[in-house]
């Protein structure tokens, strides 16, 4: 399970960088335990919508409740755990 989570962490980092066109950001510079939003990545509410779309399109996960999103988006690692537990 641990290796699956680490694989997902790296996969999600790559999706964040490509999906949000984060210039000058590499997977190594993203701390998997830091908040995705409100942190150093400069992401905003539109990016939150984009992330919801990525989860739906790439993993078949539909998020409809804010509380669920808040927990899942707490960090890249939290997101990886959420994806591992909920993907189709």
């Amino acid at each position, binding site marked *: 399970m641990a290796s699956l989570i680490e694989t997902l962490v790296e996969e999600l980092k790559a999706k964040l960088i490509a999906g*949000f*066109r984060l*210039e*000058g950001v590499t997977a190594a510079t993203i701390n998997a335990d830091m908040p995705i939003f409100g942190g150093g990545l400069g992401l905003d509410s*539109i*990016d939150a*919508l*984009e992330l*919801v*779309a990525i989860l739906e399109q790439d993993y078949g996960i539909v998020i409809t409740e804010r509380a669920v999103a808040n927990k899942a988006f707490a960090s890249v690692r939290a997101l990886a755990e959420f994806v591992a537990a909920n993907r189709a």
Partner: protein
Amino acid sequence: MNGEFSILAASWLGPEGYGNDLTGLRDWPTSLAEQLQRGDLNGLHWSLLSDSDPSRFLRMDLMCRLGFMAVELLDAGFDTMSDVRREHTGVCIESFTGSLDTDIRFALTPRPSIFTYTLPSTVIGEICIRFRLKGPVLSLVPTAPGGGDGPAEAIDWLQRGEAENVLCLSIEAMNRSTANSLPLPPELSAAGWHAAALLLGPEENPSRAQPLTAGPLADIAASRVRAPCRNALAISNRQKIQCG
């Protein structure tokens, strides 16, 4: 057009080059020039013009990128402008093609990050945020590429005292590949691309200010850039306009 108000700065980006009324028209880097000539605009990047933070640039749509670059290229000193003056600086944008390039991309790939830019007025918001401008704003859709009433509207604001300065932009932003992806009316698919900017206001720097003449905004800006100020002082070191 109006003796009271002048062109304080002008900039132009188009297939043939880019520059402002101080620098004159500069060539694009050779590797990029060919792409731009055939209407492939994906290689346009903030770093061509400035060393300043480009963090949002790649996330913007093409219209916002061009508008952003045109304003940066003006070298109008927004960074050192007083808060009071920025609060009275308006922005007027005219665009025949508007957000069509982005609209088509959104139709092909419906994503939230693309949807954000499916309005031609979004570029005004991006410019106002970056340069902290708080005056009146207006987005116009002229009936032909490069033509519009932007300067006339700006003069009206200036005469009424609604703004002390007005930033006028003309932007046409159609990537050739996007235009070719759908059957468009000929006037749209042939609109090409450019971004032109004029900063209008009372004359304050005789070495740079020039009279505002009648005509389409894009033509006025392009002519100012092709005939740069002879008496202009040294170009700001902040600008990277050096490739040729």
